[in-house]
């Protein structure tokens, strides 16, 4: 309770400062008394009651965020390169062709962003290149640490909260690819039943982990 008090007081003072018009100190005008009557008061230039941010309408230079370069899940012996990917022609997330390489969704957030979910995905397998490291993703357990290392060498540890099978058509993409909320990591691959006709798996296997610290 004591700790709450100070910020509240500060906030109140700031609000008062922001709301109260600043009186113009003009000794010659007898401001505020209205009784002298002989000197006509100089009209005060008003000040805004609210503070509206104003800036030149020039393009804001974007700081490129460091791209994830490596994905490690030590408990499962997964250690794989990561490359930036975007969107393929049909609107789905682009996935590196080889299951041994994972893709980081570059239109989402990166580990260094202060909010949102970083999304990394890889093929579970491929007819030419075989089974990939994320075939083990389904074995991950809550508490397993997932480490993402950026191109600049910075590593971010995430702690696994869940591993879930979701029918691919029901993947909550707008929640997963969010730029808001806590710093999370989603690692996605495929699993479940395989349909020989469409050559697709029934499900996505989704690991959700939360940034440590």
């Amino acid at each position, binding site marked *: 309770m004591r700790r709450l008090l100070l910020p509240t007081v500060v906030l109140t003072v700031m609000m008062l400062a922001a709301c109260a018009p600043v009186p113009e100190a003009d000794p010659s005008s007898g401001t505020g008394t209205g009784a002298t009557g002989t000197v006509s008061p100089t009209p005060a230039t008003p000040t805004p009651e609210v503070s509206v941010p104003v800036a030149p309408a*020039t393009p804001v230079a974007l700081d490129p965020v460091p791209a994830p370069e490596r994905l490690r899940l030590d408990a499962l012996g997964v250690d794989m390169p990561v490359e930036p990917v975007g969107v393929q022609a049909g609107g789905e997330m682009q996935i590196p062709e080889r299951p041994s390489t994972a893709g980081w969704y570059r239109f989402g957030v990166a580990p260094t962003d202060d909010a949102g979910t970083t999304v990394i995905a890889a093929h579970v397998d491929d007819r030419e290149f075989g089974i990939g490291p994320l075939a083990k993703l389904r074995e991950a357990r809550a508490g397993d640490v997932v480490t993402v290392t950026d191109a600049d060498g910075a590593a971010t540890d995430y702690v696994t909260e869940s591993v879930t*099978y979701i*029918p691919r058509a029901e993947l909550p993409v707008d929640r*997963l690819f*969010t730029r808001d909320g806590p710093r*999370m990591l989603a690692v996605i691959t495929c699993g*479940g039943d395989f349909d020989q006709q469409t050559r697709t798996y029934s499900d996505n296997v989704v690991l959700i982990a939360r940034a440590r610290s």
Partner: protein
Amino acid sequence: MRKTLSAGVALGAAVAFAAFVPASAATSDDADLAVLHAIPDTPVDVYVDGKLTIDDFQPGDLGGPLQLPGGTYSVALTAADATDDSAPVLGPIDLTLEAGKNYTAVAHLDAAGQPAANLFTNDTSKTAAGEGRLTVRHVAAAPAVDVLAGGEAVISGLENPNEESLDLPAGTVSASVALAGTTDPVIGPADVDVAEGELTVVYAWGSAEAGNLALATQTIDGLHSGPGGVNTGSAGLVAENGTNGWVFAGGAALIAGLLAGGVYATRAAKARR
């Protein structure tokens, strides 16, 4: 057991529902209003409903966004040293703002060089994954223009005070503005960054006669949407056909709940500080 079950179902439904309410829903009672000053050489004060709102507003500056309840607002621009809004240089004009929408009010020159004001509605509907939106507005004292990207006219015959919008793959566009039907730039070429999931609004403003045509830029985020899906297997080498119990119907709701729960946990942690 029945009670537990129905409570569980209700919770699942609530979580799933909460997850799909857009983040902006909490503020949808308000309209967003930005203000662009695009009248050259004329600093002004901006009054909204008689109250000074932006002091000493300089040409080329963008103010806001202000969150305002839906309704009609009277806006007047005065000389920058005015003491009230009794002698406006422009207005008062009524701006009708609808809750949940995003606007930019622009003070600018009309095609003939006279001060004018326009309320533009910004298209903040979702963009496709991988794309951003570019809106171009002609608010300059100049005839109709073409907007050229890579030497080709991508927008043709745009007149003051009109606008045109394009959804483009995210990236940098080298754009220039030329008088309609010509290719000699009167502005640019300039690099315009169209960021994914953002609206980039480019204003051509100033006066051709005075030789001060320029670009102003405004960006609005929150248009982002996720890709259509994640297809990550094609060989069936690790298929689990026949192993029952894997397909987890509540999976989507569970994920949504975890992410949403995370939001609440963060808020609680901040409140405790």
